[in-house]
């Protein structure tokens, strides 16, 4: 049940990211000039008849954000009361803290007229919060709790597997690097959006008719960095997929996200190109943001699963808690199986 709720929170967060990106894409960030009120009303009593034009995007974003915040409170309390893993309980608290900080950044960026630094931080923290919700869904999943099939895989010693082993270091490091690279790419993209550099290079796939721009400005440099970043991320994902496919073909918990992320990257590059070619159509631009977040979290899923063995190792280091942890984990697995 907890795992299902975590997945529901992930779905709501996807919706929240879409709503937030629609705000920026429609240049609607200041259409509700006050915060936390909306035109003087409590945001929950602001009349729907007034949700017109760009207010629909900004006010809708605030309502969805409030809902996600409330769901995160429930999640944190639930984890605190029900999860036997101490680190997991504190992770729930940290997730709640990040959504509170995210709300404050959202308010501050309105009150200070959307300064690029605060707006970019808002976008960056949104991705971290999304990652945390996905991580909770992973950590509460029956597969994670059971340790997946640690005896599968061809590159790790069998003895280590039986003790709750890892995927081999190459996968862990490739996946971790890919995830960090994707996050850096998203930060560059957010900087590009919030400094108005989205069309600083107006053509695609060429740049001012050449392979590299023939002139430079700050905006062009940011935009160029995002395109180079896209290339690097694509290469990293292809390397990740190739590695998983060659060495972990019998590990569905690794193969599935590896295949999915290749498809998502293909969609993402297409959406990025269409964003430029459509002169930043708001919906295409927004789906580009959402797809980027999904690329990041898919890579995160793969990364976390590749590190699963380390979590098992650390849990063995708490012998006093081990028995009760095992008992409660068994309960969670049973609940998960029922669900």
């Amino acid at each position: 049940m907890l795992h299902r709720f975590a997945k529901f929170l992930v779905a709501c967060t996807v919706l929240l990211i879409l709503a937030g990106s629609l705000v920026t894409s429609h240049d609607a960030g200041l259409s509700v000039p006050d915060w936390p009120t909306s035109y003087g009303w409590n945001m929950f009593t602001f009349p729907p008849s007034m949700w017109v034009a760009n207010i629909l995007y900004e006010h809708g974003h605030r309502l969805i954000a409030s809902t996600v915040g409330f769901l995160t409170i429930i999640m944190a309390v639930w984890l605190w009361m029900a999860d036997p893993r101490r680190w997991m309980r504190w992770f729930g608290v940290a997730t709640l803290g990040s959504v509170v900080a995210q709300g404050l950044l959202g308010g501050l960026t309105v009150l200070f007229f959307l300064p690029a630094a605060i707006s970019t931080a808002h976008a960056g923290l949104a991705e971290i919060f999304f990652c945390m919700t996905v991580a909770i869904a992973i950590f509460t999943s029956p597969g994670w709790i059971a340790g997946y099939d640690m005896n599968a895989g061809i590159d790790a010693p069998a003895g280590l597997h039986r003790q709750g082993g890892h995927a081999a270091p190459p996968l862990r490091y490739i996946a971790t690097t890919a995830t960090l690279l994707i996050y850096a790419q998203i930060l560059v993209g957010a900087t590009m959006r919030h400094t108005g550099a989205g069309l600083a290079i107006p053509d695609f796939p060429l740049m001012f008719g050449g392979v590299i721009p023939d002139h430079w400005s700050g905006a062009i440099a940011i935009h160029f960095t995002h395109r180079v970043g896209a290339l690097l991320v694509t290469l990293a994902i292809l390397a990740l997929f190739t590695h998983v496919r060659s060495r972990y073909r019998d590990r569905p918990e690794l193969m599935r996200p590896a295949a999915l992320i290749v498809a998502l990257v293909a969609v993402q590059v297409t959406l990025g190109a269409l964003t430029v070619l459509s002169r930043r159509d708001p919906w295409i631009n927004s789906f580009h943001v959402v797809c980027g977040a999904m690329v990041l979290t898919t890579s995160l899923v793969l990364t976390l699963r590749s590190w699963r063995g380390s979590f098992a190792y650390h849990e063995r280091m708490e012998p006093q808690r081990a028995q009760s942890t095992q008992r409660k984990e068994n309960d969670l697995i049973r609940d998960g199986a029922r669900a």
Partner: protein
Amino acid sequence: MRLRNTWVGLLGIALATTLACGGSQETSSTSAKPESPSATPAGQKVDTATAGDVKGVVMIDGAVPKNEAIKMNADPVCVKENTTPQSQETYMVSADGKNLGNVFVYVKDGLGNYVFDTPTTSATIDQKSCRYHPHVFGIMVNQPLEIVNSDPTLHNIHAMPKGNSEFNNGQPIQGMKMTHTFDKPEVMVPFKCDVHGWMNAYVGVMSNPYFAVSDKDGKFELKSLPPGTYTIEAWHEKLGTQTASVTLGAKESKDVTFTFKAAGATATN
């Protein structure tokens, strides 16, 4: 149990904070205090007995770009208020297509130590039929600017100056008014409505009263200028600026013509 109580307490605080926010409906506001006109520093006043005028026309040379079409269907009130196809007000031209309106013309330099009283009467910008009226205008530093919402829909008025303070105020109810003053000269301060993305306007904030906006026939007039040599600038929201130098004798009247081109501009006098 203690931890559980802590969580319940935190939840209560979060809800109480949310519910305590807002609920009031402002009908007017003042975002800056106007300074008293009597605070004008000592200096030379213009002798109207010797003052002259500068009159002129703003022309546009070449094919006038078409104004961008506007879709107002995101707000039913705006659609109802505008039954014909709408477009931006970027290029306001005369019937023969030769003269250009909505150009802000002002004395940029040459007034030396003259001092001017700040008008106590307000200038007004009205949000009506989902447009700003006027689209281009001027006021003096510390002159009250009354901002009115005449529409039965919400507007926010968002000023984006570089030298003055930025502000963004909501006017959700028809008939709402607020007053604002700018404390530094600035040409131009853009206004926009973030609710209705097509709404924009520009105000020139001046330290002297010698400014005008060209009408649809491109005509403008700067009255009661003291004798002297002046730099006069014409500003257009898309075509940029151009300047002319004018030397005015006592009680003299001079004509100036500004000619903007789609790519570049020239001035003659």
